[in-house]
């Protein structure tokens, strides 16, 4: 058993060195494509931070002053419910101080200065409003009306704030996902080609192995290991790249003035780590798929 494992590892390593240029091409391609996948994840997460208060089709937020009385809150609530043709009253949601503070922690994760000014006591509470109507003018005229209600601190409209960002984020997501998918397919192709070349270089050995009765798996495994290793190496390189990118981004964003909203584009390290693990897994998968196709297809030499 040990001699078999030893054999597989020796052969994998020997083949790796023999095809250095092809291997480098395959590794780099998978690294670049995985880096794109990782970047997509991070950009997505950054925009999500920015958009977290607008989740679930929320188009309008009515902020109520932290010192407003319970009667004032009830009044705002009943006024909102008075326009059921414009507002979806079923989806109307009220966030109390604790809930609003939780949300703020996420929004201002990269902006500790702003966050430190907020406490669960002084934070405004909020009504999240989902409109039924498609007419933005109608929503806007309602919002002007709500601003004048007692206890209301401000009314924010998605249109004014994050509509552009949301559209932009969707666009970027589609573009980066498509690009990374294309590159992943290219990476599989390159690994497939490397393994095919490796098998062709050793076709005499494979022929002899088949004639003396080596099993197909015995012949295949070193090649599949080689492909897996290439994918995994690509994953490792992409993780390094992603880490550098994210550090640069975090440092760059830290230079912005606090409270501009840009600071919420910082991605927490725990998230970065899980993205890296995902990249390693995808890399290994890409390598395994590419080499498995080649090893099965070209065993008949």
């Amino acid at each position, binding site marked *: 058993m040990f001699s078999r494992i030893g054999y597989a590892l020796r052969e994998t390593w020997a083949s790796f060195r023999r095809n250095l240029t092809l291997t480098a091409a395959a590794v780099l391609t998978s690294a670049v494509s995985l880096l794109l996948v990782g970047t997509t994840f991070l950009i997505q997460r950054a925009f999500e931070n920015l958009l977290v208060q607008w989740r679930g089709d929320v188009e309008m937020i009515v902020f109520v002053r932290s010192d407003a009385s319970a009667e004032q809150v009830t009044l705002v609530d009943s006024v909102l419910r008075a326009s059921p043709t414009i507002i979806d009253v079923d989806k109307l949601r009220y966030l109390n101080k604790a809930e609003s503070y939780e949300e703020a922690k996420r929004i201002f994760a990269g902006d500790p200065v702003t966050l430190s000014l907020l406490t669960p006591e002084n934070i405004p509470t909020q009504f999240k409003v989902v409109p039924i109507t498609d007419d933005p003018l109608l929503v806007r005229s309602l919002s002007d009306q709500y601003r004048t209600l007692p206890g209301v601190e401000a009314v924010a409209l998605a249109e004014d704030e994050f509509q552009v960002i949301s559209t932009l984020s969707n666009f970027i997501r589609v573009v980066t996902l498509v690009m990374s998918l294309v590159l992943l397919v290219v990476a599989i192709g390159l690994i497939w080609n490397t393994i095919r070349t490796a098998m062709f270089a050793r076709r005499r050995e494979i022929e002899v192995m088949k004639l*003396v009765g080596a099993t197909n798996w015995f012949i295949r495994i070193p090649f599949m290991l080689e492909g897996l290793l290439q994918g995994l190496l690509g994953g490792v390189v992409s993780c390094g790249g992603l880490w550098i990118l994210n550090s640069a981004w975090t440092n760059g964003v830290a230079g912005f003035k606090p409270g501009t909203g840009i600071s919420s584009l910082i991605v927490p390290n725990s998230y970065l780590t899980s993205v890296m693990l995902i990249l390693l897994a995808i890399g290994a998968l890409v390598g395994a798929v590419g080499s498995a196709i080649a090893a099965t297809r070209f065993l008949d030499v």
Partner: protein
Amino acid sequence: MIRLENVTKIYGTETVAVRDASFDIPKSQFVFLVGPSGSGKSTLLRLINRQEQPERGDVWVAGRNINELPASRVPYLRRNMGNVFQDYKLLLNKTVFENVAFALEVIGKPRHVVERQVPMVLDLVGLADKQERFPEQLSGGEQQRVSIARAFVNRPLIMLADEPTGNLDPTTSEGIMSLLDEINQTGTTVVMATHDHRVVNAMRRRVIQLDRGVIVRDQERGVYE
């Protein structure tokens, strides 16, 4: 040991390589397959080790119909067969010892078996003193001895030899034939395809003659004609 029943092998759509061939080779027999190039000798050998499968008919080896064998069992069938070729098929980047050891290593034999069996079989073929040479440092006859050693190291039931003397001069061929004879004496069934008259006529063993894929003669103690 080997039995063919009405075997027909067609390449592509109309090239009939073997037509309705039947014969029975008992254990420890030595058989020549003779005939001109393209008469189907190699195809018969390839049918016996299941590199090919017939369009019609059955091939039996050691009591089993090998055409019904699932693909995953074919490697185990081949472990009972040694193969020798005209072009030796040695691995040029491996020494004599490594070439022979390779055949044991890739079927998962442990190191101590390899280290016992390989010198023994190299001694048998008369290359005990050339274990560390590379194939290109050997003569044609010596290379063929290495390939026979590789085919025999696992003590197969059957040896299949495809023109093993095809590239060798008469004196060297004699040496190879006496080696194959010696292997046959140990009880191994030997099937050898050849169009070397001298070899066949000198040995006087069973001869199966093919012409354009058809068996035209099957004779005990035959000559080439």
